[in-house]
């Protein structure tokens, strides 16, 4: 009996180690997670708060003009999406948006890959309910042809990471990138369930 208890304790501790993760580099063993609709939906509700924050939603507008500012107003000058999401004619994103944030308030934020989703797959966040957005994100016909591996990798995409270093005067998403990534991966790995509404 004593042996059995010790064995059980060892087994419990081992599994606890396997399931542990370092928040900074997110080495959590998600492959070990079973399907869990409750945990998945709870995680997506956290993800949703980030995706609907200004830093993410402003470049996932329902129209063809990006949004701007913490209040999601239409981008001044009304630049258009264009076919490839990188603007049109003399109003291409990279004409003003540099590879890095321009210093100072009310200056263009920057990233080498600054763009909106392309015209043939707009990946709209604005106005989507949690259910609509969850279903959209896991559908390769609506998510930029991303499979599960690409969705997982997207948490560390350069433009996604920009949201946490957005330059002066811009509000950060409502949680750290590490917490977002944890919620993102938990949602995906426990079954990517969509909330009821």
């Amino acid at each position, binding site marked *: 009996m004593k042996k059995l208890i010790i064995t059980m304790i060892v087994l419990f501790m081992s599994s606890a180690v396997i399931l542990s993760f370092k928040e900074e580099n997110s080495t959590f063993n998600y492959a070990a997670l079973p399907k869990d609709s409750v945990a998945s939906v709870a995680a997506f509700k956290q993800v949703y708060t980030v995706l609907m924050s200004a830093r993410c939603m402003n470049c996932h507008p329902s129209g063809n003009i990006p949004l701007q500012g913490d209040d999601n107003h239409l981008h*001044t*000058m*009304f*630049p*258009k999406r264009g076919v490839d999401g990188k603007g*049109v*004619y*003399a*109003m*291409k994103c*990279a*004409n*003003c948006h*540099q*590879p890095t944030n*321009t210093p*100072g308030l*009310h*200056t*263009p934020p920057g990233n080498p890959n600054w763009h909106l989703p392309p015209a043939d797959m707009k990946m709209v966040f604005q106005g989507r309910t949690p259910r609509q957005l969850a279903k959209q994100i896991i559908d390769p016909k609506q998510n930029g042809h991303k499979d599960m591996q690409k969705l997982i990798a997207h948490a560390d995409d350069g433009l996604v990471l920009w949201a946490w270093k957005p330059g002066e005067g811009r509000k950060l998403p409502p949680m750290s990138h590490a917490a977002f990534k944890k919620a993102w991966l938990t949602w995906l790995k426990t079954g990517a369930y969509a909330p009821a509404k």
Partner: protein
Amino acid sequence: MIAITINGKQLEVAADPDMPLLWVIRDLLGLTGTKFGCGVAQCGACTVHLNGEAVRSCVTKVSRAAGQQVTTIEGLSKLNDHALQIAWAELDVPQCGYCQSGQLMSAAVLLRENPNPTDQDIDDAMSGNICRCGTYPRIRLAIHKAAELQREGAKS
């Protein structure tokens, strides 16, 4: 030293890599046709072409232009005979003139990519160039006129 090609001339400029391209163009090279307006990419007065794209030189670091092709209003044409310049003069577009080099550089990208622009195309291309004198109606007419000249030139 930073190597840069401006209006077809290969140059080396002694500039800090973070210096705005506009400073290099105006202060180091003396090409003062490009104007300083807002300094934060809001007005379009400083528009020049970087590899053919209408960048706002006030927020573009010279390091981004290293080894690249830059065209300013002085280099838009050799004899001031770009279809846009002819149309601009014919319709007497400028009032005070301050924003006009930026307007022309933006319009040049539009006409290169779309030789027959609609009013909507012109609005989409030119909405980043502000004119405090309100010359917008003449700018629109001149772009249509330049498109016409360009098409006629292509035929002859």
